[in-house]
């Protein structure tokens, strides 16, 4: 969805280009968070619970609610606990936001619509997305609050445990596509054939169904969404590592939560659902249509993520660890093994 076409960018000075890219992501990130927050948190959850959600702000179904909330948060007093480690406390939300921010850079939204088409795109995306653990730990530690500390420790254990199945689930896709570049993976799916029939390509969800489910489960944990929301568990730890945050700092946490959901859904859409590719559409048309298609796929995956979130109860921390180490990781290793064998056979 970004418009930094590398072919056109040759003439533009490096600094200006970088600034433009940063600005694009900076506008995109809150926008996606707003869209997810409004569509799923405000409206879908409300209707699933026999409610309407906000209806008044903005006139039409309360579309302005979240923007209004954001404005409110910015106005709020910046409250910091007396015993807080002030610098770390202030830095933590930034780090979490930055880790999300960088992921956006590698997701392709069209043949030329990508901020940075890295050769190791998927590796890079998964690596930087796990940076948020550091932010969470910093937030929990600096808050000088026992609930926050418990939440942060839970988050650290959980995010590390789920980083592994997340990466392992992707390995199957990488093996099948033969590249780590996200554009390459989209291309591999577009040109793929299902038993010799290549009209719609081969979205890897068909051949990597296990990997897809594993990826979604791990992403759910990575995003600390129910049933894996122990770090913030409001009925146990009140709000976990976020408990002492208010105003715009808290807004950063929320924004990064939804933006990360969007980013991970984007990666899932790219890896498993064919990304921006639309059969039969090439060139500039794909640059226009691609973002829309990708957006639709992201919304579909986000729907599943949030649907699960609004339905299920929460695991206990030890159950979560058991699930990661006893089920998801062996399963993903098996998936890699089978993919490898099939790759060799066919």
């Amino acid at each position, binding site marked *: 969805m970004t418009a930094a076409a590398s072919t056109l960018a040759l003439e533009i000075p490096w600094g200006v280009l970088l600034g433009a890219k940063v600005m694009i992501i900076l506008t995109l990130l809150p926008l996606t968070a707003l869209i997810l927050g409004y569509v799923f948190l405000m409206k879908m*959850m409300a209707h699933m619970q026999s409610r309407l959600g906000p209806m008044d702000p903005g006139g039409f179904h309360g579309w302005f609610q979240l923007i209004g909330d954001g404005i409110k948060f910015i106005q709020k007093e910046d409250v910091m606990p007396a015993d807080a480690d002030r610098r770390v406390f202030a830095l933590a939300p930034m780090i979490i936001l930055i880790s999300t921010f960088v992921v956006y850079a590698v997701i392709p939204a069209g043949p030329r619509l990508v901020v940075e088409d890295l050769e190791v795109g998927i590796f890079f995306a998964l690596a930087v997305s796990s940076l948020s653990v550091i932010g969470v730990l910093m937030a929990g530690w600096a808050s000088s609050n026992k609930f926050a500390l418990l939440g942060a420790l839970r988050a650290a254990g959980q995010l590390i445990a789920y980083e592994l199945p997340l990466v392992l689930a992707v390995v199957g896709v990488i093996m099948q596509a033969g590249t780590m570049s996200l554009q390459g993976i989209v291309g591999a799916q577009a040109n793929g054939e299902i038993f010799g029939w290549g009209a719609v390509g081969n979205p890897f969800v068909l051949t990597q169904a296990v990997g897809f489910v594993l990826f979604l489960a791990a992403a759910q944990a990575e995003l600390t969404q*129910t049933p894996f929301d122990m770090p913030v568990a409001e009925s*146990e730890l009140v709000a976990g590592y976020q408990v002492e945050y208010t105003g715009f700092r808290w807004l950063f946490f929320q924004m990064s939560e939804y933006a990360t959901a969007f980013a991970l859904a984007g990666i899932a859409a790219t890896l498993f659902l064919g990304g921006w590719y639309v059969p039969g559409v090439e060139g500039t048309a794909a640059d226009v249509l691609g973002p829309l298609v990708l957006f639709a796929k992201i919304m579909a995956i986000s729907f599943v993520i949030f649907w699960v979130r609004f*339905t*299920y*109860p929460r695991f206990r921390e030890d159950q979560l660890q058991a699930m990661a180490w006893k089920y998801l990781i062996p399963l993903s290793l098996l998936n890699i093994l089978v993919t490898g064998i099939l790759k060799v056979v066919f």
Partner: protein
Amino acid sequence: MAVTEQQQQAFIGKHLAEAQVAVELQDEDMVLNIGPQHPATHGTLRVVVKLDGERVVAADPVIGYMHRGYEKLTEYRSYPQVTTLINRIDWLSSFANEVPFIHAGEQIMGIEAPPRAVYIRTVLTELSRIATFLLFLGEMGAQVGAITPVFYGFRDREYVLNLIEAATGGRFHPNFNRIGGLKDDVPAGWIAETRRMMDKVFESCDTFENLLEGNEIFLARTKGIGIIPGDVGKGYGVSGSNLRASGVDWDLRRDAPYLAYPEVDFKVWTHPGGDSWSRYWVRLQETREAARIVVDLLDRLPSGPVMAKVPRIIKVPPGESWVRVENPLGEMGYYVVSKGATGPFRVKIRSASFSNVSILPWLLKGVYVPDLITILASLYFILGDIDR
């Protein structure tokens, strides 16, 4: 900086001494105050837990943040005024709170309410049971992390509250019982409406069964968590569904009959498990059973007056009476001592939640923090019922 040892010691010295909390701190332990302001304690219960990691080493519930001194207040009020007060003890099933007190008064006076009044009292008691349990069925979900069930719980409870309001004028505090009967009969069309709503209650129970009761994550979170053996429960005075979920077949509606229960054929649900899931399951079954009782009673509602002949100014003759009933939360009883005045001389309120929660120090040893929340939720207490 996070909490240093010095700060922690200072904290213990300052706060724990004040509240006289019996938690001794050793090395590497952390004291965590769950409450008095905490979403899981639905009210102002404070549980001081000593943690080793996330494992609870010792727990000491601190109650009294909501103590309103009802036993003292009743001594300064007349009988009708007391009725107003006591339906604020367990505010979720306030109609059921009024019944035993009124019974105690009627017993000392030697008055019996007319059959129609007794039937309507029974129906309203069961309706408040449904209202309480529907909220529990959702609330329990919220405590183990599912956000949606609690909304269904609130939504479906509303159907029942509307019925109670249509009959009594108050959603939460009906104040409908009078010594000798009821304030008034139910309005026209109420019975038909109640029948209609009971169908919705059955539907709602199915929803909870599908959404939560059979959910594998829910099972993993509640099965085997917080097991109360029947004998221990009895020693602590745990009652109601909590005791029945421990396999003790004990229901005052059947075993010490009152109201119109002897005339109804109903099943007392028990579960041998004794864990949090059993408590959920038993309450789910009891909600259905209560709806069945309501329908059954409405079919056979006798006609006639709803008020016996009583003097205009009620003076209860000297005497004392102990009346206990099976409230939604468990055994609720009033020990009313009268000396012939317009108000009671002494009222001992035996509320279910007080005893149900008193088992917590025993029950919470060695559980994890998330299980603590599950256990608190599954015991289902109302703070007003603990503190009175």
